[in-house]
Each structure stands twice: as C-alpha cells, then as structure tokens.
C-alpha cells in the first residue's frame, strides 16, 4: 500500500503520467536524475518541440497540408507568373506578393506554435479544497450530488461556471475544455485542424490576422494569375498561353476554392470580433436574443470599434503553463496531521485497507438495485457523444472532424461499481472524517494512458448514473450521458485500482 508515500512524491509527480508504483525508496533516486522541464510532464495531449518553445495539438497532419498548399501555390506564383508580370506591369507586384506571403507565414506559425491560453490543471491541494467547498455547499448525503456549477453575475447577465472534471477547476467564463487537446482553454474559440492548434485567448489575434492576410493573398494571386493568362493570350492565343505556363492553371484552381472558404471565414470572424463573441458562443447562441428578451452579451464593450481594438490590440497575457520551467521537487504540501483524522493520504495503511474494503462492500450492495439502470446510460452514450453541436471541440475543416468525440468503452460491470463507490465516498469526502484515500489515487489514475478522459461537454454532475434527469434543469439529456460515461470510466478505474490494493 503506497498511500503512505510522502506527499512530496505526489506533489512533484502530479503532472506526470506515471504508474503509481512509487515507493519511498524512489525519492533519493529522483533527486539524482536531471531536472525535467514542465513540458515533459504536461498532462494535456499536446506535442512540444524545441525543448518546449513550440506547442501544438496532437494531430498535425492537416497543418502540414495547409503549409504545403501555401508554399507550393506561392512558389509557383513567384516562379512562373511574377517574371512576366514584373516585366509587363510593374515590379511592385512580386514585392507586395512577397510581403503578403511572409505575413501569412508568420501569422500561421505564430498561431500554430503558441500556447492558446491553456489553463493549468489544479494541483492536489486546490482540487481537494474545491471538492470540500462543493460538498459543503451541496450538503449532499445521498448518492447523487447536484451538478457542479457556480453562477455568477457579469454585467447584469447570469453566467454559469462549470466544473471541469479533468482539470479539477471551475472554468472561468468563456473558457472551454478542448477534448482533442484535453485542456481547458481560456476564451476558447475553436480547435482548428488547419492550424494544428486550439484557437483561444492568446492566439486569436494571430489566427484572425492569418485568415485575413490569407484571403488577401489568395485574392491577390488569383487576380494576378488571371491577369497573366489574359495578357499572354492576347499576344499568343489562349491555348498557347496555357501551355506556356501550366502552373497558372493549378494556382487558379487552388485559389478559386480557397477564396470562397477563406474569405467567408474572415467575414465570419470579423463579425465575431465586432460583437465580441467566440465561435463557441455564436454556435450555441449563448447571447442571441432568441434565447430571451433580456439576453445580451455581457462582454461586449458596446461599440464595434472598441470590440475590435480589444480583440486585436489588447494586452497579450503571458502563458500560464510555463512550459520551459523546471519541475520543482521541493514544494511544500500539506502533511498528514498527527491526530487521528487524516485528510490527504493516510499514514496508517491498515486503516486504509479497512476503509477501502468497507467502501467497496458498501458499493456492491446498491449495485444490485441500480444495475438495471446502468445499461441505459452506457448504450446511449456513443450516440450522444457524437452529436455535440458546437461545444468545445468544434473543428473546422473536413479531415479531422471524424475524430471520435466519444469515450473509451468501459466494461459494463465495473462502471457501476465505480460509480456507486465514488458516490458513496463523496458525501463522506465532504464531512471531513473520511479517509480520503481515493484522493491521492485519483490524480495519478486520471492521468493513466489508457484512461484519457475525453470530456466532451462539461459534465453537469459527477454521478448521474440512474439519477432522474430532472435534477439538472439547465442541461439537456444529450449532454448528460457522455459526462457520466467519462466520470464512470474514471471512477471505474479508481475502483479497479482500489480493488487491486485491497
């Protein structure tokens, strides 16, 4: 039983995806290994390059496609069309084209490589503190605590803050959890596969500059290639003009299709910026007047100019995740109190054993009663998981939209066990006299590779298994089930781990 391991292990390994086989013997070993940078133990599903300087999403195939399209089209333009145009018309054309090209490339790379505004996950002490507050606020004694939301009034509008189960925080307003990157992102706009990254608070302006300059570039190339062909065909005839510069045909085709999509996208985002909304909010219709008479956007500054300036020229906040910092191994953390009551990990492993046994036994009995309701939730999950309209993991563009938004399928029997077991523990959790052994286990288990909780919508309640939907008046049933699946799976693994220790 390794719950008695000093808290220092848990603290410094919180972000690491490691199996919990740590023993006190490992501590001296850890001090001898070279210091790791924080990006190496980042819990989200991101890829890092250049020793943490570059941060991208996991799936970057479409980004390379974007890059290739831009480079090839511009390369062909500069090689085949520009010499003719520079001679016949003016040499300013390649210069402008070059400037536009460099600007497009710069903004694209900046969008793709920068941190979109990822919120770091709560460490163990914070998460425990929040859980305590939630349980005290709810005062729940039953198996099904009410949904974890907090309401706050912003500029006269009531906004619901949701609790993120993966990151263990209450999400700030306008933040959302991206299931593809498995991070909560501030002012989440959407996850763009073309750019290979999420678009959030810190890189939205670069993204907008990218699509704006790209629309200018495509229109520029399109018009000048057409001009080139027309000028040539006046001299040599249409067909021979096409034969002389075959690349132009390719460029025209690429630009033609790009113009419609990119210019359309730029127009859409210009509208979003001027009304200070995110793609997420617009698609959900959060601030549309259709929802209610008094529904308005509390974040808007009132006029278009201020909204634009704020979005594009406002201060750029620093990255919160400190990718290149070193993992600290000497952070002070709460030691188990010397009195009989344990809060963060028991020093008495015997007691731990006993309590785990009791909990699982307690969990087993309601299982028999509740078992009939389990399959209902589990089977409906995949369908609902796939039909999420415009929540966090909204993807633009085709290829990556088929990424499964569903969750790994847990074994049918264990989730029920895990579900009720966790439910059983929750009320005890809050009353303080629990032996919260689940807690030290919960964090590392949640980061196990095979678990990967893909939290698509924000789960309204931790354990809605079998509970009446009426509990959750604000949420629709469609959002309910994948969340239960997610927390069920998490709890099922926790249950598995507890079983193995017992």
């Amino acid at each position, binding site marked *: 039983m390794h719950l008695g391991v000093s808290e220092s292990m848990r603290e410094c390994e919180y972000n690491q995806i490691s199996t919990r086989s740590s023993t006190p013997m490992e501590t001296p070993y850890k001090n001898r290994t070279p210091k790791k940078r924080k990006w190496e133990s980042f819990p989200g599903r991101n890829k890092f390059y250049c020793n943490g300087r570059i941060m991208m999403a996991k799936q970057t195939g479409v980004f390379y496609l974007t890059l290739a399209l831009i480079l090839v089209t511009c390369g062909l333009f500069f090689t085949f069309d520009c010499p003719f145009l520079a001679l016949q018309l003016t040499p300013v054309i390649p210069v402008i084209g070059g400037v536009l090209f460099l600007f497009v490339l710069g903004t694209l790379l900046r969008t793709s490589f920068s941190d979109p505004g990822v*919120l770091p996950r709560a460490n163990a002490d914070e998460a425990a503190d929040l859980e305590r507050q939630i349980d005290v606020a709810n005062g729940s004694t039953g198996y099904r605590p009410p949904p974890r939301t907090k309401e706050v009034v912003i500029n006269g509008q009531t906004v619901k803050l949701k609790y993120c189960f993966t990151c263990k925080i209450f999400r*700030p307003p306008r933040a959302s959890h991206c299931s593809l990157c498995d991070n909560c992102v501030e002012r989440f706009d959407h996850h763009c596969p073309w750019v290979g990254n999420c678009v959030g608070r810190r890189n939205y302006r670069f993204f907008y500059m990218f699509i704006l300059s790209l629309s200018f570039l495509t229109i520029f190339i399109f018009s000048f290639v057409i001009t080139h062909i027309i000028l040539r065909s006046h001299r040599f005839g249409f067909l021979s003009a096409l034969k002389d510069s075959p690349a132009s045909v390719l460029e025209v085709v690429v630009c033609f299709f790009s113009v419609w999509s990119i210019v359309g996208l730029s127009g859409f985002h210009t509208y979003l910026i001027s009304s200070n909304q995110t793609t997420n909010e617009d698609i959900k219709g959060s601030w549309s007047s259709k929802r209610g008479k008094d529904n308005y956007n509390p974040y808007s500054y009132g006029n278009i100019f201020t909204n634009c300036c*704020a979005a594009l020229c406002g201060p750029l906040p620093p990255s*919160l995740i400190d990718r290149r910092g070193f993992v600290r191994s000497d952070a002070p953390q*709460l030691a188990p109190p010397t*009195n009989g009551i344990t809060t963060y990990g028991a020093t008495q492993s015997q007691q731990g054993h006993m309590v785990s046994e009791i909990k699982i036994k307690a969990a087993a009995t309601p299982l028999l009663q509740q078992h009939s309701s389990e399959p209902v939730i589990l089977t409906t999950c995949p369908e609902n998981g796939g039909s999420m309209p415009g929540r966090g993991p909204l993807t633009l563009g085709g290829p990556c939209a088929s990424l499964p938004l569903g969750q790994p399928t847990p074994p049918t029997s264990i989730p029920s066990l895990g579900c009720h077991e966790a439910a059983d523990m929750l009320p005890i959790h809050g009353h*303080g006299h629990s032996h919260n052994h689940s807690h030290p286990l919960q964090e590392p288990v949640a980061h196990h590779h095979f678990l990967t909780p893909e939290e698509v919508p924000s789960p309204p309640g931790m354990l809605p298994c079998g509970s009446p939907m009426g509990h959750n008046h604000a949420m629709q049933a469609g959002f309910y089930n994948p969340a239960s699946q997610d927390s069920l799976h998490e709890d099922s693994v926790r249950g598995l781990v507890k079983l193995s220790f017992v």
Partner: protein
Amino acid sequence: LSPYITIMPYITIMPYCHHHFHNLQELRHSASLANKVFIQRDYSEGTTCRFQTKFPSELESRIERTLFEDTVKTLNNYYAEAEKIGGQSYLEGCLACATAYLIFLCMETRYEKVLKKIAKYIQEQNEKVYAPRGLLVTDPIDRGMRVIEISIYEDRGSSGSSSGSSSVSGSTAR
C-alpha cells in the same frame, strides 16, 4: 453567492498563536505546513483577473482583516493595470503587429512588466506582513492565476511551552 469556505471539522480552531518567525527562511525550516487557504477568482466583472476580497475564516485568528484585504485589493489593482485596454496597450499592439511581433524578442510586454512588479510586491508582503504571522502567500501566476494560495504554518517544535496551541491540538488527538 454561496459561502465558499466554512469551518472545516478537521481543522482544530486554535486561539491566536504568537509565532515568532523573523524571516521566511526561519518559517520554512522551523515550521510545518498546517493548512492552505485558497482565495478564488472573482468573475463578477467579467474575465479580467480579480480575486475575491472575502476574508476566509481560517485566517481569522492569524491576521487582521484589513491587512489581508489590502493585499488582495492591491493585487487586483495590479492585474487591472496589466489588462487595461487603453492608449498604451493599443500602441503596443499596433507596433507589435507592424513588426510581425518580432519586437517581443527584445522588449517585454506590459503584462510581463506588471507581473514582475506583482512578484516583488508579494515578496515584500511576505517578508513584512505574512511571515511574522506564520503565513505565506504564493504568487497566483504559479497557480495558473486560478487562486491566491495562502499557506498556514505551525510551529514544528512543540517542545516549547510557548507554542501551547500546537501541543494542545496534538495532545487532544492522542
């Protein structure tokens, strides 16, 4: 707003202890961490960075309310200054855009400058106000701007009779 922090049953409420910590090093070496209080974000004014000024009950016996509120209010003012949208931020934004953001290789953003000021302020507050009372304030940037974490320390050595409260709590448990 629902009450966020109430008295937790597992924390024994002690009378006001006279801790004699003269500096941060002494605090870290001779005291043990007893509890942590988290001051959460206040979103009532939108997404700008603000922390709640509500005085947590765990600190009631440790520090005066006004001192605590002063600290949080000053921090809130610093963050408001960092995120202010006005002439200077527009200038900085336009200049950065014009230089394709390469200017940030040599210059640091206004936000970063203010963060440095905040770090200095917190260090100074810890030395002057919090450490003598057995408390330690963690810079919110180290916690992802989610919380202000205040660590509450207890005297580790309960051999002295002066630290009666900690030994009392220990003895009642056993």
